[in-house]
């Protein structure tokens, strides 16, 4: 079951690379976060780790629902461009994505060798980080770049729960707090008349 949700997490991220509509991109981000949150819940349940279960719940609520809602609200409020054609052509992205994933599995082999469990999840989280970077790079508009940054944060969260069996609770909560602050700052940065120029 965990494998299924981790697969879904990666699949949602891959699809978001091909998306050309902003609201769809937000939806894929929400699904990406939702699958990650459920995976964290299940891993936490397997490890009997209550803090990780709590982190999973916070992830589902905050990143699966609250953040996508705020992003959609901001996109309407500031009338952001809905059409977000990526700079890298889709056929090239189709070649790039598997190449990144295969390369990541090769790259992470020396690291995951010493790990007992969740070896593949570590490789997937590193791949997700690279894919999020591609998402940030392939768009000129600021909104997809923000979603790329949030996806990167998701990838790091997966790395945290898979490589370390969960970071300390205080750190996880601090990261959530920073994420909320990031949204506040993004809201303050948006200005209708300037958005098109960025």
């Amino acid at each position: 079951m965990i494998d299924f949700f981790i697969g879904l997490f990666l699949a949602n991220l891959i699809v978001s690379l091909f998306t050309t509509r902003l609201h769809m991109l937000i939806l894929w981000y929400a699904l990406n976060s939702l699958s990650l949150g459920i995976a964290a819940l299940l891993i936490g349940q397997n490890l009997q780790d209550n803090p990780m279960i709590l982190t999973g719940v916070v992830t589902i609520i905050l990143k699966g629902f609250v953040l996508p809602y705020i992003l959609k609200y901001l996109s309407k409020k500031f009338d952001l461009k809905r059409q977000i054609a990526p700079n890298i052509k889709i056929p090239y992205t189709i070649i790039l994505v598997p190449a990144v994933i295969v390369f990541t599995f090769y790259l992470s082999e020396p690291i995951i060798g010493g790990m007992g469990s969740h070896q593949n999840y570590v490789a997937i989280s590193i791949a997700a980080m690279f894919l999020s970077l591609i998402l940030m790079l392939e768009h000129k508009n600021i909104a997809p770049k923000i979603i790329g940054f949030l996806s990167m944060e998701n990838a790091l969260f997966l790395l945290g729960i898979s490589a370390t069996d969960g970071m300390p609770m205080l750190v996880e909560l601090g990261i959530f707090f920073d994420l909320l602050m990031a949204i506040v700052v993004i809201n303050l940065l948006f200005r209708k008349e300037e958005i098109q120029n960025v």
Partner: protein
Amino acid sequence: MFNFLLAPVLILVGSFFDIKKVKFIMPLLAALMFVPLYFSFGKGDIGFFDNLFILDNLARYILLTSVVVGICIALAMISLDKHVKIDEKAYKNFYRFFALFWIGLTVSILSNSMGIYWIGLEMATLSTVYMIKTNSTAFAHKEAWNYMIVGAIAISLILFGIILIYASAKPYLGEDAIKFSVLLSNVNFIKQRYMFELGFAFVAVGMFVKMGFFPMNLWLANIERASFYPVAALFSGILESAIMIGFFRFSLIAKEINYSHLIGFSVLYSLLTLFVVSFLLYRVKDFMRLFSLSGIEHMAIISIFWISGAHFAALLHFGAHAFLKPALFISTGVLESGGKYHIAGALRGYVTLKGRIFAFTVGALMLSIISLPPSPMFFSELYGFGGMIELAKTSHHMLLMLGAITLLLLFLSIIFYKFIEVYQSMKYEGIEKEKKVYLSETISIVVLMFSAMVLLLPQVFLFLKSIG
């Protein structure tokens, strides 16, 4: 622990009142940070919350420098609206985010947990984004977004590295593996050294990006150019302090894991940065970029000294830079009053007493930053090169050290030449036109200059040696 957050919290509260009146008491509020710090001296290492936070001599020193800089920036901000166009709302927001920035960095500096260190740094990064934006130009808006994106990538790299380091040590040390002190005292228990080194490499690259090392040197210079001058002063005086304390703590652990890898990677990367920065500096035409690139140069020098084992030199250089550079950035508010590119005659036309004090101090700062005696940087470089020669004699890194010293001298001579040229142009060229200086900024830069000179006291030397 919370005593140390009182000053920034009061500044945050103060920002909700009439800013035109409250701004005069902001430096006093900032100075409140001195009280808990003063009473902590001589008490050894103090841990808070199960040692998740620790006040050791290194944290004390860095906190002290950041407090002095914080007070002086709060002083300089009194006259901000006299030099730049800023509305009341933006002015308030500037103070608000300044306070949040300071809270984040205090948390980082006091943190003994890698995770909490990161949280503080991230909070400071996000606060800075809005401070850049208070300058309402299109250029500042663009650079604020750039900072948001690149800063986020840098901070993500640091978190990625921290997770790998934690993962490499957790099987042997448990949840305490998140603490710097536990990692340092139990390095031998870490068996997955490859993972640790990989993690450290990510952390170092993330920190180097935030410090503006190559290839991000132009990025940082552009941001400092786009924002109001107190932001650049905050970057050089407080943000870089928090990044540096992290670099110091992480590298002490990495040193025990594999010193050859650490020294090779860090010294070569720093030299590459110095190479690029020295030639870029040679071509600059405005004060802000000059000081900004010079800041990157000094960060590279501090890294090299620290990694080479010259801890005392690195700390002395760090302290001197933390005081001198913000003073120079604050002075740009006046120096650029005639326009961005008006270097010629920038030190002329100060007829009042405070104007003369200002011009004299800025001249002294310009010469101090290039390590002319009696600048503390002169002594830190002497001790630093001495430390590098000592390492060359006692280890198998002789070629690297001698090569590094030669290249350092070469690059520093280019920078020295440029600063002298700029100084001469400021003092002897251009037309003499009367300029206005405000009391708050004059006091601010004089206090910073005085603080730099205090570093030369024998008691300070002894204190710094106790850290190293």
